[in-house]
């Protein structure tokens, strides 16, 4: 596998969506290519950071307020 092929398949690789033969080829390439290994590590960090730090939460007051308005609108049908 070449760098450009891996770049095109990186998302599927990270998501575990490659077929076994492609995955083996990707792993083999990564073992010998520092640049691709670094891109992979950076991309995995972005994914990990997003799931840990990018969620925006509603407060319990906001949740209650919106739900009560939605239910009230439902009552008006």
């Amino acid at each position, binding site marked *: 596998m070449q760098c450009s092929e891996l770049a095109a398949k990186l998302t599927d690789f990270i998501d575990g969506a490659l077929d076994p033969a492609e995955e083996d080829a990707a792993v083999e390439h990564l073992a010998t290519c520092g640049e691709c290994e670094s891109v992979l590590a950076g991309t995995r960090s972005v994914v990990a950071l997003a*799931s840990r*730090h990018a969620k925006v*939460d509603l407060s319990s007051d*906001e949740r209650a307020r919106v*739900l009560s308005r*939605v239910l009230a609108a*439902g009552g008006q049908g």
Partner: protein
Amino acid sequence: MVRSLAAPPDEADRWLTGLFEANVGAAFNVAYRITWSRADALDVVQDAFIKAMRMSDQLREPTKARSWLLSITYREALSLLRSRRETATDPSDLDGLSGRAEDPADVVARRELAALIDAAIMRLAEPLRTAFVLRDVEELPIAEVAEILGIGLSASKMRVARAREQLRVALEGVT
């Protein structure tokens, strides 16, 4: 449970409350990442659930309630954004909406990881941003992301891949 407007009120309220509790967090995230305003995102979420309730007879597969609801939320948020852009007369209003006024370089000084990530996500073009939020923040399967956005699987993968790549470059040195 498939809910219809003909359902008894208690049953309808239970259905709606269940749908709300299970999905309001994800809906709010999607709405916020498009509008960049808590107040607007709350309005979008409220309107989306009201619309979902009124269109509930169109939900044929209860197992797809989440993607159906998030798809409604996504369209409501885009619609609000478009209407704001059409009515805004002061360009600074648009800066506030798109959030692009804030340069990540300024945020670096604050050394707050969440703020850095926020600023980098802000700078993504909307189609990439929403795909990224659904896949990597809400951690939905890519097939569901495609369903919510109303695009094909490969287009969804492409958007997620481009978003991840832009964020990787933007956050280099942080990650």
